[in-house]
């Protein structure tokens, strides 16, 4: 669980990084019209951060469960 959480943290960051490197500023994409503002970069950054939060939760949970098992 801990390793998965750490990998999710890094994966989320990689998505954010890729969004800034690969997607130019304010480049509307037709596929993202459903997102309203047509801001693919913002959408990818939000997705990356969401994955990071999931990873952080997993890492935190892994430390709690280890202690629960020791009790």
């Amino acid at each position, binding site marked *: 669980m801990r390793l998965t959480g750490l990998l999710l943290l890094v994966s*989320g960051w*990689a998505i954010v*990084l890729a969004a800034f*490197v*690969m997607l130019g500023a304010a480049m509307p994409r037709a596929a993202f019209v459903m997102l309203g503002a047509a801001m693919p970069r913002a959408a990818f950054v939000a997705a990356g951060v969401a994955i*990071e939060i999931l990873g*952080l939760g997993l890492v935190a949970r892994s430390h*709690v469960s280890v*202690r629960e098992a020791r009790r």
Partner: protein
Amino acid sequence: MIPSAAPSEAATVLELACLLLIPLAIAGIALVNTGLGRSRSASHAMLASLCAVSVAAAAYFVCGFAIQGFAGGPAHTIAAAGKQWNWIAAQPLFLRGLALDASPACLILWLQVLSVGLVALIPLGAGLDRWRLGAVCASTFLLAGIVYPLFAHWVWGGGWLAQIGFVDAAGGAPVQAVGGLTALSIAWILGPRRGKYSSSEGGMPAAIPGHNAVLVLFACFLVWTGWLGLNGAGAMLFGGAPVGALVRVGLNTTLSAAMAGLAAAAITRARFGRPDASLCANGWIGGLAASSAGCLYFDPAVAALAGLVAGALVVFTVEWLDVYGEIDDPTGSVSVHAIGGIWGVLALGFFARSGSPVQPLAQVAGVATLLGFVLPFAYSLNWLLDRFSPQRVAPEGERQGLDLHELGAGAYPEFVIHREDFLQR
């Protein structure tokens, strides 16, 4: 960024004055760590602080500055999507080739040696009463020699975060958040103090209060004074602020700390019936941490709001991490520095005056880098260190107290130690 024009003599004198105040912040954080720990580890906490600052300065001298560098200095880049992305500096090791005069690059070097000392003290608070002195030194070397300089280069050395527009005037992300997230790694790896989470407490963590509230509250004044210097020097050297902007910086720093302290006092008064001294101190320092990133860019009202939110965040997250996260952080370093610092970075993106339209996204990217790179990196390095040499003191040493176990003498030899201090819970 380094100001392009040569600074005036008055600006240089003010920058030097600000730099001279920063050791007060370091002393203050060391006192907070000591006061919030147990009396039987007080001497150890102060010595560990001194050692951490020394090791941090040495590590930064050996390789830290070579990795961090300064904006406009030599650096390694990666080409991606038709653009060169600056990721690490290419300065020589051991500060070779630097003129060491009053140039902006050298003033930045001095500021960074002081800042890295401050960063090194933040994880100490999370590892109080159970972190071996040797492990403190080894872990600090990794933090000050690798983790901090790399992230600081991305923010202040012309790195890729600076290229996408990330802004931080005085270290909300590189100093506070990096230190706070390393503290989180340390708290996870060391585990809680003995007796903190025992089944006999009905599932609730035991309260282990600090041993000297006066020390902690006095330290708040020291930290405030030091922070005025830290934020002032950062704003001038990294933000390119003119001399007159120091008024705004000082006002914002003070307002943020004051509102955070008041928020913490009001919340603890409402929840527990009376203000809690240690949480008020934590709130005060959390407000200072929240002011670091945007001290140059906030309007005073925004700085006050940032402080108010930081104070509330610190109070609630200290309890939340303790009860639900089972993270034994005796000084609240994670809440104060990581959460306070990250909140300040985000507040700069969303509430600062005259920010560019891309500023919020750039600030979020900075926070994503802290969570997605700095935290796993710091955790992995400290985990590896723990594999080679356990960072936690032996159970007998923890029962006895680190003063006697590691130093051979207590901080308060005239005090009678209560019998229950030696009982294993």
